[in-house]
C-alpha cells in the first residue's frame, strides 16, 4: 500500500484569464470583444492602457507556425520592430483642388491641381490581430523552377511539412481577392485542404 498522491490543481491567477472586454467602435457603437487563443497566440486581447512600443508581436515561420518576436532598443534604434505595411492596405484616390481652394501663387487660375491621396483602411478589427499580415512583398516563388509567384499566399511555403497535432496559420493577402468590376475586396473566403496524388518517383523523396 502506498500513499495516494493527489494531482496538483492548475494554478491560474486572475490576470491569466481571458475575459471579454468592452470597447467603443465608430465613435458611438459599443461592442463586447472576446479574446481567443489559437496555437498560443491571443487574438482580440485587450490593449494595454499605455501602449508599449516594445510590445512583442507574432511572426510566422515558413510552415505557418507562429513565432513571437520581441522588439529591442539598441543604440537608440528599435531592432525587430512591429511590421509596417506601406500602402498595401490603403486605397489610393485622386483629389482635385481648384485655384480658389489653394490660392497657390504659382498656379494658373484656370488650372486644377490633382493630388494622390491614400486613404487608410478601417482598422477596427484588423488591429486586434497580433500576427504579421501578408503583403505582396512577402510572397515567395514556387514551382519546380521557382518561377511562379505564391500569390495570394505568404504562408505556408511550398514543400514544407505540417505535423499532426500542431497548428499552422495559412495567411494570404486580403486585397488579392478584389472584385474585377466593382473593385471591392471580397468579404468572405473559405480555406480548403485537398489531397494530391503523388507520382511514384516523388514518394518518400521530399526533404524531411
Amino acid at each position, binding site marked *: 500500500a502506498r500513499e495516494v498522491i493527489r*494531482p496538483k490543481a492548475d494554478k491560474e491567477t486572475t490576470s491569466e484569464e481571458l475575459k471579454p472586454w468592452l470597447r467603443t467602435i465608430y465613435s458611438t457603437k459599443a461592442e463586447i470583444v472576446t479574446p481567443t487563443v489559437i496555437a498560443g*497566440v491571443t487574438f482580440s486581447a485587450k490593449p494595454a492602457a499605455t501602449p508599449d512600443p516594445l510590445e512583442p508581436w507574432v511572426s510566422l515561420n515558413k510552415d505557418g507556425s507562429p513565432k513571437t518576436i520581441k522588439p529591442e532598443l539598441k543604440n537608440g534604434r528599435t531592432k525587430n520592430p512591429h511590421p509596417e505595411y506601406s500602402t498595401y492596405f490603403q486605397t489610393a484616390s485622386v483629389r482635385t483642388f481648384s485655384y480658389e481652394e489653394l490660392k497657390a501663387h504659382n498656379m494658373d487660375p484656370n488650372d486644377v491641381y490633382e493630388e494622390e491621396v491614400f486613404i487608410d483602411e478601417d482598422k477596427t478589427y484588423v488591429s486586434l490581430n497580433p500576427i504579421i499580415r*501578408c503583403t505582396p512583398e512577402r510572397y515567395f516563388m514556387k514551382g519546380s523552377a521557382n518561377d511562379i509567384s505564391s500569390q495570394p499566399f505568404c504562408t505556408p511555403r511550398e514543400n514544407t511539412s505540417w505535423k499532426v497535432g500542431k497548428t499552422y*496559420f495559412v495567411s*494570404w*493577402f*486580403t486585397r488579392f481577392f478584389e472584385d474585377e468590376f466593382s473593385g471591392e*475586396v471580397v468579404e468572405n473566403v*473559405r480555406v480548403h485542404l485537398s*489531397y494530391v496524388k503523388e507520382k511514384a518517383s516523388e514518394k518518400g523523396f521530399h526533404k524531411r
Partner: protein
Amino acid sequence: DIPATFFSSEWLKNVDGMYGIEIDGDWLQGQYERKIVVSVQPSNIPDEEFNPLENGVLLYMIQGSKVSKYSKEELALQDAGISNDKWYYVALSIPTMVIFALVCIYFFLHYNGKYRDFSDVTQAALGKRHRVLGEVSKMKKFRKMKNHKYSELPSYNEKSSKQ
C-alpha cells in the same frame, strides 16, 4: 463537395487574412505522409467553378516523430500515482524465469545422477572398438609378396676404356 478536398473551413472574414488549422491525424488515413494542397476560395467564385488544385500551395502533411519523453499527461498521471510499468515487469520476469529454469535443471540432474548410465559412450568402451592393423608383412594378403632389399637391386659399374 469539391473533389479530393478533405477539409473545408466555414466562411471566414477575408479581412483577417489568415486561418489557423490544427492537423488531425485522421486526415493521413493511416499513411505516414500525404501530399496536400492549400487553397482559398473567395465568396465571389461558386463551388462549381472553383478548382482548389489550380491556385494553391503544395505541401506535406506528416505524422511527425515521437519523442520518448514524458508528456504533460503522463507526468500528471505519475503525480496521481498512476504509472504504466508493464514493461518493467516484463523486463524483470524474463531473466527470473531463466534463472529458475537453470536451478530446476541442476537439481533434476543432481537427483537423477545414480540412474544415469553412460558406460557405452565412455573412453573404455570406445577403446574396445579400436582395432590395430599390425605390420603389413604379417597381413594375410601381403604375406607371399617378395619384397627385395635395396642392396639386392642390380647395379651398373662404370665401363673401362678397353671395352
